């Protein structure tokens, strides 16, 4: 990768049309689209290409989407296992090869410390000098900072606490019980492997999304892709605020293609409890709403599968696939545990699988709402010439997936080019006047 052009002190690293922040799959997809349109840009990366995939995930994690669906603009999977799921080293290799193939102008080891508005654009300040640009694309990750609820402060100090960012493998945990808070993809995956390691898991379950790995002989992602569900646009759903908050589905990508729902975890001996609602005098309290949360997830899964059946019928592919399948309702203990004494020694570790959020701590442009989320319309941020990539359901249901970057990058790149052209026109007019 190229060296920074700056010298001593607080150098001007340079002037470009566009600064892309982050060299993950989103930033690189945008870089490729900008290159196609001959837009002068740099991609600033705090670490190395694909940094978060490399350093901030647990060991066993694989993508939730099959290899054939894992693609970036002008680039796809070419191995001999199209139905497999990439491990993290494979994802890193995939993204790294992409960066080389598209000759992305990446500046690695360059941490952005501030983005400020200036006349006709932005000043992007980094630990390697400052850039002047007309447009900024924020592709620094949707899942950078683990979100841990305030109740975490009440956990007794004898219990070791982890987030999915610092959890790597079960052996890292002390022998003994583990409380996992949250039952999205992360929570169920960790519950499965930690239970298997001989550490009894209690899983606190709130609102969740149940999904079988395969349905009627095809991968669930094949169906969602084929039926157009993944392409559904942000301006076509009833309640986009809610759709963006939906937790990740209870899926795992394994060579065995197994489903990892709550029934599968119960079979392995995982103890299901309701949402963690408080910790008082060292006792964790769980909501009595577990039954309803499971009933809702079962109903929503049935609705999804019914929509898939309807599509299969309408598209004429129903005969080419297996017949419809029904899945057993989620089994819930008639009276699940409501409290758990965290001082008894039963629980030695707690893992907060309670979601994550982007990090905008360096963003000195007033575009955040009262909850700290960026205000945008399908990735077009409120501030002119500012764009964001990779957020859940940002433009499409697939926006936060690797294969979702392409369509979003093309749309946003087109908007960005229009913006640059209108800036240019304005400058000409003011010069003429």
């Amino acid at each position, binding site marked *: 990768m190229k060296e920074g052009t700056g010298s001593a002190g607080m150098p001007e690293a340079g002037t470009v049309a566009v600064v892309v922040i982050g060299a993950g799959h989103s930033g690189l997809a945008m870089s490729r689209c900008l290159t196609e349109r001959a837009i002068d840009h740099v991609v600033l990366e705090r670490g190395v290409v694909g940094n978060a995939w490399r350093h901030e995930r647990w060991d066993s994690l694989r993508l939730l989407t099959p290899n054939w669906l894992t693609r970036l603009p002008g680039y796809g999977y070419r191995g001999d296992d199209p139905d497999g799921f990439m491990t993290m080293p494979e994802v890193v290799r995939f993204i790294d090869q992409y960066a080389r193939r598209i000759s992305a102008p990446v500046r690695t080891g360059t941490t952005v410390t501030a983005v400020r508005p200036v006349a006709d654009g932005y000043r992007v300040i980094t630990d390697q000098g400052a850039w002047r640009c007309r447009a900024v694309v924020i592709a620094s990750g949707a899942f950078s900072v683990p979100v841990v609820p305030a109740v975490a402060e009440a956990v007794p100090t004898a219990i070791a606490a982890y987030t999915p960012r610092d959890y790597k493998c079960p052996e890292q945990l002390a022998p003994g019980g583990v409380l996992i808070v949250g039952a999205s993809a992360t929570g169920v995956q960790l519950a499965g492997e930690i239970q298997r390691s001989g550490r009894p898991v209690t899983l606190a379950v709130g*609102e969740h999304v149940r999904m079988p790995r395969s349905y009627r002989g095809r991968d669930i992602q094949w169906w969602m892709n084929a039926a157009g569900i993944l392409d559904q646009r942000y301006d076509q759903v009833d309640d986009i605020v809610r759709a963006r908050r939906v937790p990740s589905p209870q899926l795992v990508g394994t060579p065995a293609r197994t489903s990892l729902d709550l029934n599968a975890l119960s079979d392995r001996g995982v103890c299901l409890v*309701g949402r963690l609602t408080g910790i008082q005098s060292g006792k964790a*309290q769980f*909501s*009595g*709403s577990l039954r*309803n949360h499971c*009933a809702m997830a079962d*109903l929503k899964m049935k609705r999804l599968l019914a929509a898939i059946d309807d599509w299969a019928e309408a598209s004429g592919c129903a005969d080419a696939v297996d017949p419809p399948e029904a899945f057993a309702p989620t089994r819930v203990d008639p*009276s699940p545990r409501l409290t758990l004494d965290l001082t008894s020694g039963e629980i030695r570790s707690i893992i907060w699988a309670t979601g994550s959020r982007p990090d905008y701590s360096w963003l000195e442009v007033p575009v955040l709402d009262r909850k700290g989320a960026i205000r945008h319309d399908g990735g077009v941020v409120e501030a002119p010439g500012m764009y964001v990539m990779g957020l859940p359901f940002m433009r499409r249901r697939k926006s936060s997936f690797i294969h979702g970057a392409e369509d979003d990058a093309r749309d946003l790149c087109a908007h960005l080019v229009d913006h640059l052209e209108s800036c240019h026109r304005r400058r000409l007019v003011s010069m003429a006047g």
Partner: protein
Amino acid sequence: MNMNSTMKVDNGVNVEALLGAREALAKAPEAARFQWRASCNWVNGTHSRSTVKSYHGLGGEQAHRTEFTFDADHPETFASEDNGATPVEYVLVGLAGCLTAGVAAVAQNRQIQLRSVKATLEGSMDIQGILGMDGDVRNGFDDVKVCFEIDADASREDIEALVAQSQKRSAVFDILTNPTNVSVEVK
């Protein structure tokens, strides 16, 4: 054949007003803070009389059209005079009222015509708790069961979804299933 199918769905819930309120409150979240009140006077024995009238919300003082009165007592099994429902029965009444209102509102929003909605509730407890006989037994309900019988122009699954959504958005369901800080003072 079905007259209702050609008519507009009407469960008597003004969903437009509720959705409008949601939109207005998104712009002024402080107006969404409500305070509900009740006052209670001891009558005699275990008999008390509570009233509700005023409440606070939408940024100002509000009031019911009339004052509502509730007599609470205990039945003769408890050597009381049975001048009203027991307080724990009021809790069931609160849950039933909340979930049923939710069913109607969600049905209206989903364009489902209701014909009848009946809920039966059971709250179980071991009174060794309130009698102080066994410290391991809690005072309150150890189990609450609600059974809905709903007649509506909808599939069984859609009706189950109505009931599930109603629980998800219910204040009393939340109050019963999650802990709440309660402070009681003497003036």
